[in-house]
């Protein structure tokens, strides 16, 4: 029987996100310093958490791929980098929208913003590289290496830019946040986790099938020499 459990998980995540955003927008109190603008945190914070988690999955998959050489890991690298990149771009857009009313600018050289911008390029290159390599085994090895290096670099980039300049507010903890704000935030985080899981697993299945066809397909025959057309008398 064909199993498509990821669709159910994705829909569950979507429902949880809708509930969390309704509660965050209409039930939870406004943020003490920023007012209603602060309500974007119910979308922004889960995107950041799950985006980083997806990159962590891609790192683990890359290590697994290079260690075992199995196509399942390779498909997971592609699937998780794609979804991680999507969340990363969303994170940048949300962050810019939040930054304008609070910091007065869409963009500033804050460590977390800058690190996110660099992650977009670093992980985007992994997908570019995958599309440049035709041989599946070479693609597995090289894109896994690029993923490992991109992930290892994240904390170093963060540290260097933090030393360079910092503006982002410190982390909040559940102790400093009203209870009615914590619940929708947690539900939104799990909703985003389920939705991202649905996307990653769906893409993993698709990429796995594509790789299976690619690996099993026979090599194309040698190109035959061009036909010699004799001049008509």
């Amino acid at each position: 029987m064909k199993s498509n459990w990821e669709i159910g998980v994705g829909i569950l995540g979507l429902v949880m996100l809708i509930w969390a955003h309704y509660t965050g927008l209409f039930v939870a109190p406004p943020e003490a310093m920023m007012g209603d603008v602060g309500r974007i945190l119910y979308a922004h914070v889960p995107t950041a958490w799950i985006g980083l988690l997806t990159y962590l999955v891609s790192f683990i998959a890359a290590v697994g791929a290079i260690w075992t050489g199995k196509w399942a890991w390779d498909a997971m690298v592609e699937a998780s980098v794609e979804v991680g990149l999507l969340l990363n771009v969303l994170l940048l857009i949300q962050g810019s929208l939040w930054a304008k009313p609070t910091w007065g600018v869409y963009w500033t050289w804050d460590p977390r913003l800058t690190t996110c911008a660099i992650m977009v390029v670093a992980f985007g290159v992994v997908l570019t590289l995958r599309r440049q390599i035709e041989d599946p085994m070479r693609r597995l090895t090289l894109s896994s290496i690029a993923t490992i290096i991109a992930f290892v670099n994240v904390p170093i980039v963060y540290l260097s830019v933090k030393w360079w300049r910092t503006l982002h507010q410190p982390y909040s903890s559940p102790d400093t946040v009203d209870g009615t704000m914590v619940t929708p935030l947690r539900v939104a985080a799990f909703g985003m986790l389920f939705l991202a899981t649905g996307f990653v697993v769906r893409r993993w299945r698709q990429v796995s099938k594509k790789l299976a066809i690619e690996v099993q397909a026979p090599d194309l025959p040698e190109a035959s020499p061009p036909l010699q057309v004799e001049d008509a008398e």
Partner: protein
Amino acid sequence: MKATLRILQKDLLIEWRARSRTVALLSFAYTILLLFAFAIGPDAAALRQHAGAYLWLGLLLSSTLLLDRTMRIEFEAGAMSKLMLVPVPATGLFYGKALANLFQLCVVGAFSIPLVFVVCDAELVESIGWLLATLFLGAAGLAAPGTLYSAMIARLSGKQLLLPLMLFPLVVPVMVAAVKATSLAMLGDPMNQIESWLTLLVCFNLVYWSLCGVLFGRVVEA
């Protein structure tokens, strides 16, 4: 170790025999420095303020040309497969090539520094030792990942675009630290911050000289 030294010797000999390429690389670095000066205009204070940034941007852009050819010469006429048959261990090959690239980047840097002082009217407030240490550590930070990436993309189409696309985001910490340390050495460092930036460069180098050495074997196999 022996293989590393042999590869280093071989690569430096090739570069020495094709000196015109090195001269072209130095000319490229020189042109970039001039272009930065033209872009800013004749504002001497602004040029002096950002002299460190121009030096490192020039070095970064020159490094893409240098790194692009470091592996290309091995794939011409099947040299790489013969190296593997000798056999040269992959780690020896990586460290030999990375050290050769480090040496050449240091040469380009040593050539560019006097130019920066002249073109940007810069001064050296702190000891020259700090500037040379920054040059060495910054060049090392470009050489290790650059050597690995050049091997990864040596046989791909569109490699001229891929190398900077892969290398530039990775070396952001190197650029930030090297530019800050160079600027502090040139403009003065009353808060003793240079050591912190050099520590960051040392950490980056420790991570990438070891990680790239481990991963290079897989790249060669692929």
